[in-house]
């Protein structure tokens, strides 16, 4: 190992240690890197002109089309959360599943899976889920350890189930790494990977996880009913009225999430465009739910229907491009119809915006979306500076050589990376690991001929497991922060162990049956 490589290794270690100090992640990473670059340049092994490349590397990050999906997905999630649509969804699912053994627990798992997009930060999702459902679960007589385990596990589900922003950034990094592998590691293939591919790949493993979680909770409910008691439907209400009300609260957000996902997987829209439609839809749902004046409510409904009509017209494939030479009268009619619908949508949309503005709700949602997005991109910029300097010192070649020399070739290298990532997951959140580690390890791994989608899904599952694992799992810290004192650390640990076992089962399923991750994206491609 040469001096610069040793320096790059030391830099990585110091950065991990420095992060423990608790200063914000973005500037700890980049700060440590800059200090090591300074040391390197005094030793004459680092060229200061390297710094001049920074703005040129940062600029594409802030303008890349796929990353515009991040604020849009966050906007959608925050809107669903702030307008209490998410809360209602949980409540009605809980009531509906109530008579089932472990029904409330299953409801929590489903909501965790559906709210995937709301944030990319493990902490935030777990906190939200904890505040939302822990008191209810305890009140209904769930055993504290089962309740805590369910919530911690469901809070991390949001990362693996599309559309999650974690998969957006991971997909972006994997896609870059794949090109890098082709460019400088001699991988010969004409394939490209997109974020949409990763979404498709994550769907099946994610659903398997949800299914296993639910099975475990139901089984607990059946075999020890005192741990997960069933709650019968209220008897004093008319059953029909009650079910209609539950469905009314449930269906809109569920349909919204499925529509967004469907439009990405079917290739109708890019993730960014689907996210924008999703954000718009979430806002209209929020107006319908929270506005007290009928006119705004109606405007939002009309607007929503108009958007749906436009999408349907588009899918039907009527050629409505302007400036065609041979336009049939049917096409002309459709264009006029589409234009009318468009103008109706614009007018009603503006009308629907008004109560949002007036109640300061739009302001609050934008505020929170901005702080989350700024945070994500600050880390992205910090991590980019870190990896640039790491490469400048020759660290990437060190990593590649190290992985190449791993015993067992491809599988040894893969296992090594997975174990390292698992332990890094104790200290760092998803974003830092994705931005710092993936660009370093993915190109040499992919050069072995490993399927990029499979690799991405394995990494995501692995990290998700890491966040649940005591004693350092992120999800556990955050959940404990919002739990009542009777949830002790021991109860919490005991609660998550079965879920960790499920995680490991699914990780190994995906390892041994790669088609779980790759079949769907491949079939969508062809």
């Amino acid at each position, binding site marked *: 190992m040469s001096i610069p490589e040793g320096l790059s290794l030391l830099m990585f270690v110091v950065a991990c240690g420095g992060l423990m100090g*608790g200063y914000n992640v*973005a500037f700890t990473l980049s700060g440590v890197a800059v200090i090591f670059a300074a040391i390197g340049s005094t030793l004459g092994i680092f060229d200061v002109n390297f710094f001049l490349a920074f703005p*040129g590397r*940062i600029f594409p990050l802030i303008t890349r089309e796929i990353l515009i999906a991040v604020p849009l997905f966050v906007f959608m999630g925050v809107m669903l959360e702030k307008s209490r649509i998410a809360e209602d969804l949980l409540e009605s699912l809980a009531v509906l599943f109530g008579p089932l053994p472990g029904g409330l627990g299953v409801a929590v798992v489903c909501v965790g899976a559906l709210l995937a997009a709301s944030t990319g930060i493990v902490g935030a999702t777990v906190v939200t889920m904890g505040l939302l459902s822990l008191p209810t679960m305890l009140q209904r007589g769930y055993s504290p350890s089962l309740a805590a385990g369910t919530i911690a596990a469901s809070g991390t589900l949001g990362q693996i189930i599309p559309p999650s922003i974690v998969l957006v950034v991971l997909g972006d990094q994997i896609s870059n790494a794949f090109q890098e592998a082709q460019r400088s590691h001699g991988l010969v293939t004409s394939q490209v990977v997109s974020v949409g591919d990763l979404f498709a790949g994550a769907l099946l493993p994610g659903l398997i996880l949800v299914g296993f979680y639910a099975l475990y909770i139901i089984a607990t409910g059946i075999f020890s009913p005192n741990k997960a008691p069933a709650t019968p439907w209220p008897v004093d209400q008319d059953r029909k009225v009650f079910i209609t009300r539950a469905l009314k609260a449930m269906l809109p957000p569920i349909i919204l999430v499925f529509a967004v996902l469907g439009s990405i997987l079917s290739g109708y829209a890019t993730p960014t465009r689907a996210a924008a439609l999703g954000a718009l839809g979430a806002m209209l749902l929020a107006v319908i739910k929270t506005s007290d004046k009928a006119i705004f409510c109606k405007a939002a409904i009309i607007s929503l229907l108009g958007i749906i009509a436009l999408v349907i017209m588009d899918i039907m494939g009527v050629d409505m491009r*302007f400036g065609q030479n041979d336009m049939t009268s049917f096409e002309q009619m459709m264009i006029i119809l589409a234009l009318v619908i468009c103008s109706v949508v614009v007018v009603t949309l503006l009308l629907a915006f008004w109560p949002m503005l007036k109640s300061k709700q739009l302001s609050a949602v934008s505020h929170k979306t901005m702080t989350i997005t*700024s945070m994500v991109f600050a880390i992205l910029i910090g991590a980019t500076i870190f990896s640039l300097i790491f490469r400048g010192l020759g660290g990437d070649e060190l990593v590649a050589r190290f992985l190449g020399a791993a015993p067992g070739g491809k599988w040894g290298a893969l296992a090594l990376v997975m174990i390292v990532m698992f332990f890094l997951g104790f200290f760092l959140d998803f974003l830092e690991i994705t931005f710092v580690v993936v660009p370093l390890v993915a190109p040499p791994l992919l050069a072995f001929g490993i399927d990029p989608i499979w690799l991405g899904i394995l990494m995501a599952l692995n990290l998700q497991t890491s966040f649940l694992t005591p004693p350092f799992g992120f999800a556990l810290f955050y959940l404990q922060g919002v739990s009542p004192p009777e949830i002790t650390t021991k109860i919490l640990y005991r609660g998550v162990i079965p879920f960790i076992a499920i995680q490991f089962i699914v990780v190994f399923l995906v390892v041994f049956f790669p088609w779980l991750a790759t079949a769907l994206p491949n079939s969508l491609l062809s």
Partner: protein
Amino acid sequence: MLDIFAKAVKGVGWVSLLWFTLPALLLFCPTSKFLREISHHTVEIIDTISLTVGQVVKWALPLLVLTVAASVFALSLFGLSWTKLFESAQYLHATVIMLGAAMTLLLNEHVRVDIFQSRLKRPQKALVDFIGFHTGLMPVCLLLIWSSNSFIGFSWQILEGSAESDGIRGLYLLKTLIPAFAVMLLAQGLSIALRAVMVMRKLDEPKRPSHVHDLFPEAKGIGQ
């Protein structure tokens, strides 16, 4: 003309570097009334600017939603591909993430690894931020500003526009967001470092704007 402007900006930049000695000066002479007053004003001015910019810029987000949604229909329904519409989404997005960063720092929403940090006492937390500013945020931001010099300099000279013929002619402004991000974060970092010194030296802190939380809250027991 542009040359004089650039020189003026650089001059102001060099002079304002002096300001960054303020936290250290205050740390060593906490009794100086002069230093305390300057620090108070600095903190108040910087916090107001960051908050105001953040509050304005956040409105770009609803606009971003509308812009991207509109471009979906324009393209897929009517086959119109308005480069300007598509590019304005980039401008809105970049503006939000770059100019919102300083307010995010003030509101303490940038992620920290708080396994240990959350258990520290108030002055210890302040020390973490003081050190973090001087070894992390400040060098990185100064480096970004320095390295942007040539990156945006040329762009400004030709008032660079989009590579597409029907695009927005403001690429030089978009590129300027990078040093703007660094300058705003640098200023906000200075303000926080000053607050940290005030906490460490037990001086009066300037009043916090209404929705800004205490940056260095006293440690809470787990489970509360």
